[in-house]
């Protein structure tokens, strides 16, 4: 493969980090693997476009962006993390290094562990590497 073709297959996020689309998919797979309580997850770029998701990417992007818009509007500054626990499940959102991770888990999921895993995969993605 030529260098131009390789670059065409790569994506650049707002921080300038370069990663392949497959890396985002592997990051979502890793999140699912790490967290048995997880029902679904997605990774969005800073513009809210879905890079990878366990289900319908467009719906994850749309509803994830809506959640973050509501969360940003609730306070005086943009949120870094969102945790909403309902009777039907728990929703997590995390902004890190210009990327967004969304996750839905069963009730009583281990919050700090899940946020730690989400932050780890985003950090690895933003660094241009594979989620490890």
């Amino acid at each position, binding site marked *: 493969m030529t260098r131009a073709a390789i670059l065409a297959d790569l994506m650049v996020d707002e921080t300038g980090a370069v990663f392949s689309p497959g890396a985002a998919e592997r990051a979502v797979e890793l999140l*699912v*693997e790490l967290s048995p309580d*997880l*029902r*679904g997850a997605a990774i969005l770029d800073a513009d809210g476009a879905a890079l990878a998701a*366990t*289900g*319908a990417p467009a*719906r*994850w992007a749309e*509803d*994830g962006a*809506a*959640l973050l818009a*509501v*969360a940003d*509007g*609730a*306070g005086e*500054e*943009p*949120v*870094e*993390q*969102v*945790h*909403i*626990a*309902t*009777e*039907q*499940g728990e*929703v997590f959102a995390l902004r890190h290094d210009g990327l967004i991770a*969304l996750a*839905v888990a069963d009730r*009583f999921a281990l919050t700090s562990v899940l946020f730690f895993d989400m932050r780890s995969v985003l950090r690895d993605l933003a660094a241009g590497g594979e989620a490890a």
Partner: protein
Amino acid sequence: MTPPKPHRVLLDRVSGYADEAAAYVRRRRVSRRPFARLYYGGGRAADFAADGRAGGELFVAAGRLIEVAREPVDR
């Protein structure tokens, strides 16, 4: 009367901790109510009641994501 064997003491102690942990998890499941918590830079956090305007909107938005996640995940 002979003292208990050391391994028996250790087992009793571990069982005691496990019982405490199980009771804590049971209490947590019973007492935990739905909540919406937002975290900001610098570690600041804010809670929003479900019956408030912002809290209500957060719960509606979260409910949509829960619906999206209903599709089964391959493990």
